């Protein structure tokens, strides 16, 4: 599978370096290695979701209890979670850090991903959720650390878009 194990490892290690101890996730192709890494890590609480919006609640509970968490999902999962993001994470000022694989964007071959790809950034903007894209290995750790810092200083959701150039190995 051309999903990059090395890039996934860099992302995972950066999350660990930021003190993340809870990951809630709903799989998609680009996330398989990241989810396996969380599964194999005895110090990580991995919560497999039935629907992504649940992850907003879990991140809220974890944060209120003092644990650092992230959500791992694809952009359609982000779209699925919007009311939770607005009515829970934004209303209650929760530093929700979302790692969102940006499917349906430049280079996408799957036609079914393309509508979601088009609306992801406009929806993030409409919700006033700051985001950066992770698309090269050398900035991954730094951008994850900055995202975590901003989420906790603003007490608001922050997104990191996982780009094809980082996650996919054959272009």
């Amino acid at each position, binding site marked *: 599978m051309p999903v990059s194990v090395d890039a996934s490892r860099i992302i995972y290690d950066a999350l660990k370096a930021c003190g993340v*101890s*809870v990951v809630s996730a709903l799989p998609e192709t680009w996330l398989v290695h990241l989810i396996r890494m969380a599964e194999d890590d005895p110090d990580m*609480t991995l*919560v*497999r*979701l*039935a*629907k992504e*919006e*649940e*992850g*907003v*609640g*879990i*991140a*809220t*509970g*974890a*944060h*209120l*209890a*003092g*644990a650092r*968490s992230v959500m791992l999902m694809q952009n359609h999962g982000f779209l699925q979670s919007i*009311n*939770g993001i607005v*009515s*829970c994470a934004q*209303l*209650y*000022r929760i530093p929700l850090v979302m790692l969102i694989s940006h499917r349906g964007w430049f280079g996408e071959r799957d036609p079914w991903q393309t509508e979601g790809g088009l609306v992801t950034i406009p929806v993030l903007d409409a919700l006033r959720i700051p985001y950066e894209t992770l698309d090269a290995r050398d900035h991954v750790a730094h951008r994850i650390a900055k995202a975590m810092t901003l989420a906790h200083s603003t007490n608001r959701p922050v997104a990191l878009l996982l780009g094809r150039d980082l996650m996919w190995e054959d272009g």
Partner: protein
Amino acid sequence: MKRLEAIAAIHGRLQDCIVVTIMGAVAAELQSLGHRPNFFYLQHAMGLASSVGLGIALSKPAARVVVLDGDGSVLMNLGGLTTLARYRPRNLTHVVFDNESLLSVGGFPTATATGSDIAGMAAAAGIPRTATVRTLDDFTAAFDAALAADDLTTLVAKVEAVGPAGFVTDLGLLENRFQFARHLRGLPETP
């Protein structure tokens, strides 16, 4: 049974628990009986109270977490029952006040009014302890048994579709949130 009476009957036990409620009527009723820093009222985010409870229960295994949910809210996050069952936090008691109604928005009937069985769905999702109760005595006995059992329980209490006249209280949402987080973080980490 009235939900207010049911909450009043367990209010004493809730002092030692971490409590997460849904919005509207349930939140206002619990507050009317006496607010505590260990009570968090999740206003508006329909369906997510049980997920917030799961996040707390997993992060604070030494705390006893009680979620006060509603039928309409559970129906909006049925998948969450499978997630609860999957992680089976033994320190979580999930109480569902089933008034067969979306009471807080005018009382339209939910599907439990036509037979949908939340305890049955919870059991089928894999929640190890489930029950439906209809009287105050059965409710308090089942609630105490759930706390004593030290296992994940979904307890459905069939209640009348009545509630307070208004839902806004003088406790700000963020005041509640920060007070609750401070309380929770001060609790011991391990059992």
